């Protein structure tokens, strides 16, 4: 019912025709392409629609060889542990996961994982790599279109600089294989997120995770009211935040109904994103610190007919673990950030453990170019805080906080986030228990292709920016 009402003919050669040189060329060659030459005088112009594919992923798995890791402790991402386990992957997919007697073909690469650990590739649900890249100069500050309180029309992928050295640090030190790049939080609706494979690429399209749904960033609380209130415009209060949000949703609902009706609706990029949310195609990732505000957002979502996939930076989630569980909403949290702003004043180390106690979905996220390199340790800190209070969360479940759970909240859990036959071979071989400060990734595979190897200096990715500069290719 929300589909685009009018069908239009696309004219791919429009840009070429607008230049005099190109026009001249047209005159001598008799046309610049099929679409132009077949266009009749009364045909309307039209852009390609999203369902026809825009900014499509060009990522393809890199060449891989059939590989088995044996003798390792395996955390499968869904709470399972296999001691002395074997993972066998081939053709970009996981083929088998099991104990020491798991059959593997004779002629494949085998790595002895004795004393080592295997996990699914680590997933960061909250990153700004590429949008706020290193070096963090003004010319690179592309993460927040903070010029209007709602900018659902912007797409984070259009700001991603694939040469950000932060991607390779996250890979090598953090074992990150997938990550969601979100717009910043100055706006109530910051725009679309994009989910990336953490592979070096020349273009962002070369990193886009095929088949991953889009997300939309929303933000509660202090940031939007401060940024826009400071400019003398709405919102300047938390009630203003909700008013602007609700008006925007109502307009999106009208738009959706117009689209579905006879009269149709003029294309509107922002509303297309909002309609995507209403249809359930685009997932809401809502920056929200305070418990009371999260509860209000859940009611707003019910009022308007959308679902919140995850609250991010949810430092007070522990106060409403029951409510989050009831609403099937994940809470993406830090282990130990607190007190840097008023709405983070009640941050406690036990946040994740208290959520787990309620059976709510826990995700550990970074929002940080450094913490993304140590999500495993951040998860360990949160685990231990629970243990001190008698909340014993097994290591394998904790690994789920940084693998399967973020995959679920990002809508990619059928493809990655756990070690199960048929899923993508995104995995990390750690040189010790990943829930330790003393452990590091030794090898990282993405779609079965070895993308990092700590034992081979040539397997350290070096971004264009780093080439020829101090420390290029150095261990980082």
């Amino acid at each position, binding site marked *: 019912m929300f589909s685009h009402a009018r069908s239009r003919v696309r004219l791919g050669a429009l840009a070429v025709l607008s230049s005099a040189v190109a026009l001249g060329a047209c005159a001598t060659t008799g046309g610049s392409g099929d679409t132009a030459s077949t266009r009749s005088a009364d045909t309307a112009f039209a852009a390609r629609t999203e369902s026809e594919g825009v900014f499509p992923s060009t990522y393809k798995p890199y060449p891989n060889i059939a590989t088995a890791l044996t003798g390792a402790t395996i955390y499968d991402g869904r709470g399972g542990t296999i001691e002395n386990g074997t993972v066998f992957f081939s053709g970009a997919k996981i083929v088998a996961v099991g104990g020491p007697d798991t059959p593997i073909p004779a002629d494949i690469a085998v790595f002895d994982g004795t004393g080592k650990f295997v996990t699914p590739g680590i997933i960061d649900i909250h990153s700004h790599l590429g949008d706020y890249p*290193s*070096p*963090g*100069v003004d010319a690179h500050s592309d993460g927040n279109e903070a010029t209007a309180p709602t900018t659902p029309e912007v797409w984070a992928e259009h700001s991603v600089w694939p040469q950000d*050295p*932060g991607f390779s*640090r996250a890979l090598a*030190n953090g074992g990150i294989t997938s990550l969601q790049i979100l717009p910043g939080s100055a706006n109530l609706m910051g725009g679309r997120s994009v989910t990336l494979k953490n592979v070096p690429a020349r273009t962002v399209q070369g990193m886009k995770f095929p088949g991953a749904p889009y997300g939309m960033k929303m933000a509660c609380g202090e940031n939007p009211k401060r940024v826009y209130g400071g400019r003398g415009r709405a919102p300047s209060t938390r009630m203003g935040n909700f008013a602007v949000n609700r008006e925007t949703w109502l307009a999106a609902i009208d738009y959706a109904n117009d689209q579905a009706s006879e009269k149709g609706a003029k294309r509107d990029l922002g509303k297309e994103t909002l309609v995507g949310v209403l249809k359930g195609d685009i997932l809401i990732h809502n920056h929200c610190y305070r418990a009371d505000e999260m509860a209000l957002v859940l009611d707003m979502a019910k009022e308007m007919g959308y679902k919140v996939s995850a609250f991010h930076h949810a430092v007070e989630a*522990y*106060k*409403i*673990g*029951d409510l989050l569980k009831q609403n099937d909403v994940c809470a993406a949290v830090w*282990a*130990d*950030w*607190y*007190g*840097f*702003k*008023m709405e983070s*004043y*009640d*941050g*406690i*180390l*036990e946040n994740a453990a*208290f959520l787990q106690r309620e059976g709510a979905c826990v995700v550990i996220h970074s929002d*940080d*170019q*450094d*913490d993304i*390199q*140590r999500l495993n*340790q*951040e998860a*360990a*800190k*949160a*685990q*231990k*805080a629970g243990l*001190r*209070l008698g909340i014993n969360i097994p290591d394998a479940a904790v690994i789920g906080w940084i693998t399967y759970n973020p995959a679920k909240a990002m809508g990619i859990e059928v493809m990655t986030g756990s070690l199960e036959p048929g899923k993508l071979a995104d995995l990390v071989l750690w*040189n010790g228990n990943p*829930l*330790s*400060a*003393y*452990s*590091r990734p030794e090898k990282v595979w993405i779609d079965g292709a070895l993308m990092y190897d700590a*034992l081979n*200096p040539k397997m350290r990715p070096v971004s264009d920016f*780093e080439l020829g*500069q*101090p*420390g290029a290719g*150095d*261990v*980082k």
Partner: protein
Amino acid sequence: MKRLLMLAASAAALCAAPALAQDMVVTNATLVIGDGTAPIEGGAVVVDDGKVVFAGLPTPGQAFATDVLIDAGGAWVTPGLFATVTTLGLADVSAVDESNDISADKSPFSAALDAATAINPTSENIKVHRAAGITRAATTTMPAGSIFAGQGAIIDLDGDARPVMQARAFQMIDLGEGGGRRAGGSRVAAYALLQAALREAQALSGQSGIPQTTAIARDNEVLLSRFDAEALVPVVTGRQKLYVAVDRAADIRAVLALKADYPRLAMVLVGATEGWLVADAIAAAGVPVIANGLTDLPETFEKLGATQSNAGRMARAGVTVAINAATLQNPRRLQQVAGNLVALTRMPGAAGLDWGQAFAAISSVPAAISGMGGKAGVLKPGALGDVVVWDGDPLEAGSVPTRVFIGGREQRLESHQSGLRDRYRDLDESDRPKAFDW
């Protein structure tokens, strides 16, 4: 009443050694001295009158009487951590401007600013970090209107009425990208300001030149007032340490060269992200470094060579290295950073620190840099009785103290955070709202 305790039970020893009254005795510890040596199994610590009188492997014949006997049961026992560079006690919530005394960009003063005047010993940040095993810290204002941050203090975290152990312990200046912007737009301007300031301070100290007494100003902005110049007198005479925040290798060389004109400067480098590129020069100059531990991204053009191996490579070259708390999310992460530096010793091509060195880099080394050598961050006879008992390996992610002693006194570990933790152990409001649960 004092209870008699035998560290190594032997009737003969008991008779031979008359027992003295002690504040506390910890036995059966995995004992960390903090001086870079390896942990000692079965170690003991004895604190008397607020000071360490013994730490090590007890020998037969040692006997002590004590009110407080702690059998650590094999747990890790360490000196209190020494955090540097911090802003502990200078802000409640950094983004809540009224509560934040860390910087003052509208003040006409810079070098004259004295952090000791505003330390709040009952700040939540102090409580939270005390519970994380940090017992002493170097705390300072940060540069805002000028390259001079002001004068930092050495504090204890015991929450009593006297948090300041040493006021005006060091002056900090920024001579990197940030300093250049604050000086008017370039590093060149920052050096001109620094030279002018030091020359004026030298004149005021009576060494050479004539004090000018005029302020250095730009429009309505004062970059250096007479009061600031006076505050720099102990810097040029070497009585007060000069912490210099720089990251780029070239900037580090330029800073080391200042010693030629001002040989008495007691310099300490802060940050030093590219220190590994000039490690030999730093070592030769004998300048200690409070290094960024895990910075590995070219966040700015002054950090192009950033690598987590920086601290390890500098240490290998003979540089004295402490870990900088200023670039961490919060200073309680120091122990995790130190653990990560140990992890690097297992990575091919990387340089890290061994366990003892890593622990020293967050305890005795920063203490010594702060003028507290032998007093803080170490368990040796004569040192302050700061003893921390941990629930695990103190450099492991998520380890926290179970007990903290500062100056021989056991500390409360409660805070706003522990109150919230205890209240939300469950979500049960069937009888009364949570507000009555405290």
